[in-house]
């Protein structure tokens, strides 16, 4: 684990950021509807008519749901690619092409296909974040020292043993690097979905408040979205610590 001092710097930087924001509002005469103060932003959480908890939980479910789906499908596909080279040869290029399609641009189509609500937004979050997981996990699974495979094949290890004892644990550091990238993308995916069509969620709330020029409520929504993202990222870091860092495995 990092030293206490490193954590001190990190906390200080966050506090410093908020302090500069507060100072900027105080010394300049930027009107509050352009840049509200941190305090004014925070106070919005007390406004019960905003239904914060509904929006917060809808967005949280979309992000975590889409992300979990991406991890499951992504890892399963990577395993399939490693086990069946023909599938890899056929599907990997297709996947690369499909990944080039901007998922954000596909969101309006998803709405037509799946109607609007939590599920289509979850699918958009999934679509935008599963590719890095497939790619990094696949790479982790195939990056094994050839001589290590020779060593166990000389004692007639079967494919399953090689997979479970060598490939799968060896791929974990790669999987986690993909999961960290995907965590950021999942948040963006869910919010884009809400922008395009929804009646609940923090993205939806942002658009509604924009019409009212209620900047401080918009800022509070952003803070909450960031909070969800940080919580997801923190969960991934925790899992990485348990399964990788603690055992001293690095790539």
């Amino acid at each position, binding site marked *: 684990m990092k030293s206490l001092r490193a954590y001190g710097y990190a906390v200080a930087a966050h506090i410093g950021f908020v302090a500069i924001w507060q100072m900027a509002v105080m010394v300049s005469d930027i009107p509050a509807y352009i840049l509200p103060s941190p305090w004014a932003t925070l106070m919005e959480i007390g406004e019960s008519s905003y239904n914060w908890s509904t929006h917060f939980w809808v967005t949280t479910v979309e992000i975590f749901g889409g992300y979990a789906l991406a991890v499951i499908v992504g890892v399963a596909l990577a395993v399939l690619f490693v086990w069946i080279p023909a599938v890899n040869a056929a599907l990997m290029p297709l996947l690369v092409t499909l990944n080039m399609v901007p998922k954000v641009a596909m969101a309006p189509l998803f709405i037509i296909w799946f109607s609007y609500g939590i599920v289509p937004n979850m699918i958009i979050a999934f679509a935008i974040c599963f590719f890095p997981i497939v790619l990094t996990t696949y790479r982790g699974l195939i990056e094994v020292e050839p001589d290590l495979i*020779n*060593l166990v094949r000389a*004692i007639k290890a079967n494919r399953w043993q090689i997979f479970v004892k060598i490939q799968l644990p060896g791929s*974990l550091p790669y999987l986690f690097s993909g999961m960290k990238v995907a965590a950021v993308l999942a948040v963006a995916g869910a919010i884009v979905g809400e922008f395009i069509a929804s009646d609940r969620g923090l993205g939806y709330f942002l658009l509604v408040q924009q019409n009212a020029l209620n900047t401080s409520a918009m800022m509070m929504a952003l803070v909450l979205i960031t909070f969800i993202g940080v919580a997801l990222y923190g969960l991934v870091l925790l899992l990485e610590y348990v399964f990788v860092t603690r*055992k001293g495995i690095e790539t």
Partner: protein
Amino acid sequence: MSADPFIRLDSVRKVFRVGGAEFVAVQDVTLDVREGELVSIVGPSGCGKSTVLSILAELYTADGGTVRIGNDAAPFTPGRDIGMVFQKALLLKWRTIIDNVLLPAEILGLPMRESRERAGHLLEMVGITKFADAYPQQLSGGMQQRASIARALVHDPRLILMDEPFGALDALTRERMNLELLRIWKESRKTILFVTHGIQEAVFLGSQVAVMTPSPARMAAHFDIELPEPRTLDVKTTDSFGEYTRQIYHLLGMD
């Protein structure tokens, strides 16, 4: 040479096909190894040394000649009686040293309690008992290589194949590991094939040295090495040691 060696290789040949072209990976491999003998195979890169080990480990099949391992006194079970050590220690980063050593026992489905006990003894033999519960990256290169030697022995195979096992170590550690290997070999009484490109190392360790040359990759000659026993570093200063190494340098066109 006894009439019934543990390993008999006779005119073994291996061809690789790349695209439409064929090239000879190795040819004229003829070698008899007695049970319990430590034989060095020496030669420059690209002479087919590793290919010979791969054929013995059944990772490749030979395209010509005879390969026979085992005799009536010492029957050989393919896939069971092979232990391998490579230039890299190839330890699994997420396993402790003792669990790394146990990997072949797990793969072969050996009883774990006995294997764990045996692994403990082997760690003692290679001198890293205190690192049993450490992770590989906490150990120096030499210590990691000791662990990989213990791993090659854990399932009690009859034949140990070593492919430049000390090639990545610094010169002093390498000399120390040479002495350690001789001790481990005597204690374990295994048959060892030791591939190296170090001529001095080959002569110092082997009771015979097979010399391989590149282009064409073939086994060019072999020497029975007779040096004072037990072999200590003093042996390297003897006239006969110098004579053997001189002859091998000459064969490899390096004099």
